[in-house]
């Protein structure tokens, strides 16, 4: 089983990356060059909130996606993790972005809210 060890290394690298980065996005492509509309939208929402995040491109090796889905029990890409926990894919991130929950989860100010409040200040 020559493949067993490299796969475990990928598994370990993924769990380590999730635990080391407060906000980490597994996506297709890179934030500058997303390779899928769902990944692009998720990146755009994070960037709109000004939240710093680490990004991992799953495309270079299919085992990254296999191991990631085995760890998260989540079948699709992108996957956003905050403080070691899966927050969701594009649908959930979009719902949370629209409700202001995403800003809260990320610990940043919701730009929509600050725009609303601006005239009062």
């Amino acid at each position, binding site marked *: 089983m020559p493949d067993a060890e490299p796969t475990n290394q990928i598994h370990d690298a993924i769990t380590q990356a999730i635990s080391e980065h407060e906000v980490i996005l597994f996506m297709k492509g890179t934030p500058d060059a997303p390779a899928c509309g769902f990944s692009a939208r998720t990146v755009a929402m994070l960037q709109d909130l000004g939240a710093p995040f680490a990004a991992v491109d799953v495309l270079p090796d299919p085992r990254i*996606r296999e191991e990631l889905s085995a760890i998260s029990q*989540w079948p*699709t890409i992108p996957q956003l993790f905050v403080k070691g926990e899966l*927050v*969701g*894919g*594009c*649908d959930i991130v979009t*719902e949370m972005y629209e409700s202001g929950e995403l800003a809260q989860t990320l610990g940043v100010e919701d730009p929509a809210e600050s725009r609303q409040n601006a005239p009062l200040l």
Partner: protein
Amino acid sequence: MPNAQEIKQRIEAAIPGAQAEVEDWTGGGDHFKATVTAPAFQGRSRIEQHKLVYEVFGAEIGGPIHALSLKTQSPQ
């Protein structure tokens, strides 16, 4: 190739009391958008709710079903 009607029926058959509205997002038979309402979602997080729906299709998600965009809710 799955179609919207088949996806709707499979969700409704697998999750007790579920009602699903499914549309073929691109018309290409591989990107679907579903709104699912089910009593089973009550008290579960969004992640758990979406997982319940994804489980219906297993490895087909990411395969023949390239994308299944979900919105889940429990009945009012």
